[in-house]
């Protein structure tokens, strides 16, 4: 039997935004799918040298090693089937280090193989971490700051001489880097137009568990991923929505690991009888453990009640 054509989905995100956790969590969920509409594994790929050790760590609740930029991960496939439609796909989700994208931004260039990948991919999974600031904090003049709180926080010694660092490209804010990378991709001219972009807000369990004392805090930390993106990553959100002819987008809150790294959290995570139930995917009002949901949306295998944000 001939294998299905390979479908590439690009995991795009800066360092530490949960790309590898997503990939490994996806591999686990494909083997233990609880959603009848979700993708499932048709069988193991021939080469699992990259994914299998990571999967073992994930199952033990351990943190995953940071993906190396100097030694790119070997190719790997996820052989999948969509039971309701019978669609079979061999997915390739290259797990590139976040520094790779940082380097693309700083050097203002993309290697030719990256250009081809963006041109031919079926869509993007764009990662942002819920606990990272999209932008730099703007300084306030001292008059804005409560003097009582300053006196409590700041020792009364003479301040050291000020050293203002010179701006470098590396210093650009995260949402600026991501918007610029998307502009690169738009310029390359992907074959898919509009190109589907599933925005993954990772570590969503932190948002879910954040206390919301009062309406103001609730407004600043909304539990709806799309609303969260519009408040905390406005430049990225507006860019995607304004360019719906180039990028079709939808926002997902995802906890691919399922929790934190403390001993108590690890004990909780390994306590699940079905490890796939550690996973949390929030998509509008819908919550599930189906990590294939963003992938299905990109591939057009989602139910019709799930339109894009734009």
């Amino acid at each position, binding site marked *: 039997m001939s294998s299905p054509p390979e479908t590439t989905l690009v995991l795009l995100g800066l360092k530490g935004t949960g790309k590898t956790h997503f990939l490994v969590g996806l591999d686990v969920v494909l083997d233990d799918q609880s959603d009848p509409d979700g993708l499932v594994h048709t069988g193991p790929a021939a080469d699992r040298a990259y994914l299998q050790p990571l999967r073992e760590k994930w199952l033990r609740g351990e943190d995953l090693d940071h993906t190396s930029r100097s030694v790119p991960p070997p190719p790997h496939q996820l052989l999948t089937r969509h039971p309701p439609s019978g669609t079979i796909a061999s997915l390739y989700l290259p797990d590139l280090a976040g520094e790779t994208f940082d380097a693309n931004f700083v050097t203002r260039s993309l290697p030719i193989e990256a250009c081809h990948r963006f041109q031919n991919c079926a869509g993007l999974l764009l990662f942002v971490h819920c606990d990272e600031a*999209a*932008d*730099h*904090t*703007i*300084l*306030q*003049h*001292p*008059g*804005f700051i409560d003097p009582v709180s300053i006196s409590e926080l700041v020792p009364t010694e003479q*301040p050291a001489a*000020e*050293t*203002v*660092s010179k*701006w470098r*490209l590396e*210093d*650009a*804010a995260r*949402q*600026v880097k991501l*918007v*610029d990378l998307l*502009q690169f991709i738009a310029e390359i001219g992907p074959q898919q137009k509009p190109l589907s972009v599933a925005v993954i807000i990772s570590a969503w369990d932190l948002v879910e568990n954040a206390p919301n004392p009062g309406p103001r805090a609730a407004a600043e930390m909304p539990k709806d991923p799309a609303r969260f993106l*519009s*408040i905390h990553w*406005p*430049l990225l*959100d*507006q*860019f995607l*929505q*304004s*360019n*719906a002819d180039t990028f079709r987008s939808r926002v997902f809150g995802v906890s691919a690991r399922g929790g934190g790294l403390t001993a108590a959290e690890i004990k909780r995570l390994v306590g699940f009888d079905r490890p796939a139930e550690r996973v949390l995917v929030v998509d509008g009002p819908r919550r599930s453990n189906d990590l294939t949901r963003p992938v299905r949306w990109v591939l057009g295998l989602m139910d019709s009640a799930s339109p894009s944000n*734009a």
Partner: protein
Amino acid sequence: VLCAGAQKSGKTTFLARLGEMFRDGAFSHYRFAGSLTLCAFERVSWSATVPSGASSPKTVRSLRVENDTFYHLRIHPSGEPAYKLDLLISDLAGETFPTAVSLRQFCADLRSLARADHLVLFLDSARLADQANRHTECDNARAFLQQVLEVKHESRSLEVEIVFSRWDYIVRNSQSAALVLFCQATEEDFKRRFGGRFAALEFRRVMARPDGDLKPTDDVIQSIFAHWLETPIYASTLPTPRARQPARDFSAFGLP
């Protein structure tokens, strides 16, 4: 859009604040759709951010070599994503403003001025609040507008906004009431001299990054931005339609 004014009059801070407002989602009527100069906006804001190590917000000054370069923004009105607008904004380095005031040829050679639909002229309120400098500040601004009138083709198509920048220096001054009157008199003087000679002459008071406990006048900044976008762009009409197959290259517009 060309922003002009003396050194440290707040031109670059104004532009930095524009970029910051798009990055923090503060713009209410316009949505960000792209920019070819995101890094330039980042650079001018950097010294006002916590990671820069600065103890109070600062702005890097624009350099002479940056004249006739542009910031780019692509935006659309909220709810109208198909109606995209590209905005090019040039920040005339303050160090070259005295040259622009005194040398007509310098102004004539400024491509950003030749192409501008809007001129934003910054009057530094810090200098207006200073008895020794206030008349020079006004005089230079008047002289610059005179130069613009001399060199700008179809100056009646140019929208001019005069910005009393760093307005917090007036608000916080112990002689605030008198200074406000002086600024009003300055406005009247500009209207008398230049009213009707440009497409429009408007006056704004802006604090982009005020000292003390004052808040930035983001609403005024937004209204200036909206004015750039909502003013119909004047398009020159050619006296004769272009001939598609002229006898000579130079005679496409009706010359024999």
